[in-house]
């Protein structure tokens, strides 16, 4: 939807769908998903370079993204402490020449839920170090507000745990976050299918980040197109202003002029 750009930290983004690059079986599927999802940003992680591995010479995911015209949003996936997350962000800035960082600090590897205390500490340090910080956070409205107060340029609440596909477990909390946020809200984690993305946008989120629902779908490119349509439909509906929910019916046909038969 051109003419309705997303603006984060003064940077105008044409797409309200951000792709996570995790979970794709190969680079071709990622490339096709980028095209079908019409994304401008895609997350990448940093790992040790193994001369024969995925990140090795000539096989870099960066080539795929560059050819697809997609920009990189580095993340701190796999970090459990503020210290590790800050160092990973600094390495990412060096590797990718961007001061944008998708900040993730995870509490445990079973739920992958954010560790709020470590997250706040990392966000504070990274903002002070000049980063544009986009933190992955719980759906706690207070946590989102605190992250914004620390100077984060967006907040990225989860709908449900990473890769769970459970959608948005607490739409009420997401609504509260949206209501109070003055930075963009990006629904991050938990999207399972197109309707989840549409709901996120209908709740007023500014964008959606999605990977597993696309990368692990039977047909990733087709699901990418579906979630793209979900984001666009939800955004249109949000801007259109939905009718309130009512307990009882409200006739749309006037009773006046009803004939006596």
């Amino acid at each position, binding site marked *: 939807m051109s003419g309705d750009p997303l603006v984060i930290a003064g940077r105008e983004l044409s797409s309200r769908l951000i792709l*996570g*690059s*995790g*979970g*794709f079986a190969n680079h071709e599927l*990622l490339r096709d998903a980028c095209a079908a999802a019409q994304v401008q940003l895609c*997350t*990448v*992680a*940093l*790992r*040790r*370079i*193994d*001369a024969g591995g*995925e*990140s*090795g*010479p000539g096989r*870099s*995911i*960066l080539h795929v993204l560059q050819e697809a015209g997609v920009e*990189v*949003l*580095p*993340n701190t*996936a*796999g970090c459990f402490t503020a210290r590790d997350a800050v*160092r990973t962000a*600094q*390495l*990412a800035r*060096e*590797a*990718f*020449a961007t001061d944008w960082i*998708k900040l993730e600090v995870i509490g445990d590897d079973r739920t992958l839920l954010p560790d709020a205390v470590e997250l706040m500490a990392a966000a504070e340090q990274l903002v002070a170090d000049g980063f544009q910080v986009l933190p992955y956070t719980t759906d706690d409205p207070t946590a989102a507000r605190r992250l914004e107060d620390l100077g984060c340029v967006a907040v990225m609440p989860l709908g449900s745990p*990473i*890769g769970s596909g459970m959608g948005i477990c607490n739409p009420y909390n997401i609504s509260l976050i949206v209501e109070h946020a003055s930075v963009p809200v990006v629904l*991050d*984690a938990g999207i399972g299918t197109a309707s989840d993305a549409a709901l996120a946008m209908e709740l007023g989120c500014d964008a959606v*980040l*999605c*990977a*597993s629902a696309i*990368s692990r779908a039977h047909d990733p490119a087709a699901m990418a197109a579906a979630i793209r349509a979900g984001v666009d439909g939800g955004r249109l509906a949000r801007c259109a202003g939905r009718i309130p929910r009512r307990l009882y019916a409200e006739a749309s046909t006037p009773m006046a002029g009803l004939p006596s038969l």
Partner: protein
Amino acid sequence: MRVVVNGEDRRLRAGATVADVVRSLDLAPDARGVAVALDGEVVVRGAWSSTVLSEGARVEVLGAIGGGR
């Protein structure tokens, strides 16, 4: 001289630099998407060739992989 590169013991000549380690992984010195940490601290690209390793140094050479959600 012994150093640890990405968790593996390596034997390098005395005076070897960070740039030597990067090259040993078949990476060009200007390779985009590569970052190096020495003993946990970032070594900026411009300092790779002038940063000499010492015995027991821990070097991490990192690159981009698919990741996120």
